[in-house]
């Protein structure tokens, strides 16, 4: 039901031309579309009822992202709702409800600054420092949607333990440099120079902070994997459609056995990826002990199979495949960005092999 709702929305409100308009506009996303997301309840669905949300979990988020993947939705749902919102939701931060409420109605964007230049996927090794007087210094990189955020959630260390802080982006000493991403979104490099915070800016410390980072990244990883699974299905269905309509040498190119078997491979890989997604989303939903392992298995699989699938889709679309004006090349760019985020295929394979 949720799936049908999203599909209907994407069909009527978010076709490829609409998406292209947003990508080409000076804004990183369309605030009207974001408002529609709020109206559909999508911005609140993932939060617990205590925090004012609808209390849905990993399963619904996976479905949402799978459909987002099919339509290549570029709104900053991952940054604001999944990364920042869920982190707040799971935290014991006393002010979280007012923030979550603002996210739910679409009035606030928060970005989570978890990455630094040198930590290569180990998000618990943090150099950004918070001194005893709550002064923050450091540089965060690849902050998703950072250029559009009202607030930043950042990891830092007091020299002793991990801390998570939140503050307005217009606080003195915060400078933000925003860049476009390969999938048409944006990310920022953000530096903190003697940013003065106080105790109420601190969301969590120590064990709680570590658990929040791990669970948040794990959930976000699941979400982009679901997005990849949606991409893979679309790569397959769109290629099938294209090859059936495209004539060469007097026959549709779908009649060539080599292309048929390659599409069969795309279909099979898409189904296998879907299976791993189902497993992983159930494990995360149950908060099982093995959930990280299952998410890593999924991430390692889609990183490789997804890229191959998108490359094959481009190849079988011929010249059309490399044209910016066709949707198909954008799936490949999406798969590149998904593989890059939160550890690539080899990294996650190592995670489960060791």
């Amino acid at each position, binding site marked *: 039901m949720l799936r049908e709702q999203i599909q209907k929305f994407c069909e009527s409100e978010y076709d490829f031309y609409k998406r292209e308009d947003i990508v080409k506009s000076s804004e990183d996303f369309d605030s009207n579309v974001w408002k529609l997301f709020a109206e559909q309840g999508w911005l609140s669905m993932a939060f617990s009822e205590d925090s004012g949300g609808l209390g849905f979990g990993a399963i619904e988020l996976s479905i949402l992202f799978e459909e987002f993947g099919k339509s290549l939705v570029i709104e900053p749902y991952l940054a604001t709702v999944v990364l920042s919102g869920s982190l707040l939701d799971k935290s014991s931060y006393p002010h979280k409800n007012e923030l979550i409420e603002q996210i739910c109605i679409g009035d606030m964007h928060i970005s989570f600054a978890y990455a630094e230049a040198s930590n290569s996927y180990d998000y618990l090794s943090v150099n950004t420092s918070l001194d005893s007087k709550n002064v923050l210094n450091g540089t965060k990189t690849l902050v998703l949607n950072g250029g559009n955020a009202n607030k930043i959630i950042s990891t830092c260390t007091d020299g002793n333990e991990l801390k998570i802080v939140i503050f307005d982006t217009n606080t003195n000493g915060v400078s933000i440099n925003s860049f476009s991403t390969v999938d048409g979104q944006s990310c920022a490099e953000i530096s903190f120079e003697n940013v003065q915070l106080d105790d109420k800016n601190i969301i969590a410390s120590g064990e709680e902070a570590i658990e929040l980072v791990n669970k948040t990244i794990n959930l976000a990883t699941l979400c982009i994997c679901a997005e990849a699974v949606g991409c893979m299905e679309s790569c397959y269905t769109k290629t*099938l459609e294209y090859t059936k309509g495209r004539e060469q040498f007097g026959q549709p190119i*779908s009649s060539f*056995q080599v292309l*048929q078997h390659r599409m*069969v491979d795309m279909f099979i890989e898409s189904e*296998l990826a879907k299976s791993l997604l189902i497993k992983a989303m159930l494990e995360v939903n149950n908060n099982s002990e093995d959930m990280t392992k299952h998410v890593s298995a999924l991430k390692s699989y889609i990183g490789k199979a997804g890229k191959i699938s998108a490359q094959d889709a481009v190849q079988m679309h011929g010249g059309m495949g490399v044209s910016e004006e066709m949707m198909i090349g954008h799936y490949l760019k999406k798969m590149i960005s998904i593989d890059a985020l939160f550890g690539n295929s080899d990294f996650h394979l190592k995670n489960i092999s060791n």
Partner: protein
Amino acid sequence: MDINFSKEDIAFRDEVRDWLANDYPKHVKEKTDSGITISKQDLVDFHKALSKKGWMGYNWPTEYGGTGWSASKLYIFNKELGLAGCPPILPFGVGMVGPVIYTFGNDEQKETFLPDILNFNTWWCQGYSEPGSGSDLASLKTKAVKRNDLDEEYYVVNGAKTWTTLAQNADWIFCLVRTDSSGIKQEGISFLLIDMKSPGIEVKPIITIDGDHEVNTVFFSDVKVPAKNLIGEEGKGWTYAKFLLAHERFGIAAVGSSMRELDRLKKIVNDIDNDDLRKKVGELEVSLSALEITELRLLSELENGGHPGAESSILKIKGTEMQQKISELFVEASGEYALMYPGPHGYGSNDKPAGPDYAANGLSAFLNLRKTSIYGGSNEIQKNILSKFVLGV
């Protein structure tokens, strides 16, 4: 989408495990656990033990003495037997000809053949492929000509069937034969049951590259087959054959046994501490998990009344690839010792070479399993099927 098992299913799983722990013949278990090839008698003992428990008719409806199990129970049964390292249940009787007989046979045929299948009193083999026919099954040439002598109606069968698994042990063979050559090739095919003791039958071994004798060519020279051994109608054999192929989905992905093998492999690879192999094992673990859940999803569709049909080709393709890749990694893990190969029956206990135990077994499996992507409709044919039914091209 429900890929989790019900309480009833869990209880059933425990019952299977219980049987495996207590009633699965110990002498068979000992051999399979230590990688020793089992004998014909071992196979018989294993099947008889299943019969005794009432599980031989795992895929049959209760009215014919079967278990009437749901798809998920079938899945659990197969997986648990695989995990325990049991030999595969021989499919030719209970999985193949049995369902054809109870679906298309007459009452006399049902009474004659079904109980012996369930009790494993008869060993069946399959007469489908012919020398030269390969995946183009319908091009078969083995001829059956009907005669009528002194009120005795019978067929005279001439021709040859090949790749016949364990024909050397079989009591009966079910055959597709050509009773009419006038129409298109699928028509004019009939389904005959033939006693392997009939005069004029000769079984010639085919030794496969692993050195084993598992398959055969069966030659028929003027073999007399009573007309009452015809299943259903003359000329409808192709319909029954297709029914059989569609019906035989049991265990095709071999998830349980692949899990067992991959687990053994993982321990070996951790011992020899090789990063390249560890990575390859990790990839297979992920793929096997994907395959398992895909099978469960198809099951769930089946149980909800869907007809996954052609999608089971995915299980065939990926299941056989998985078995082959695991065996290939056993060979890689054997390092230099992959050089030595004594044949499929090992070196024997007095003559044990240095090097790891798994080297010879791994190589034997690697060579033996090459056939899995060729038989039962080669993986290329499976992709043609998927092209037709899934892609719609």
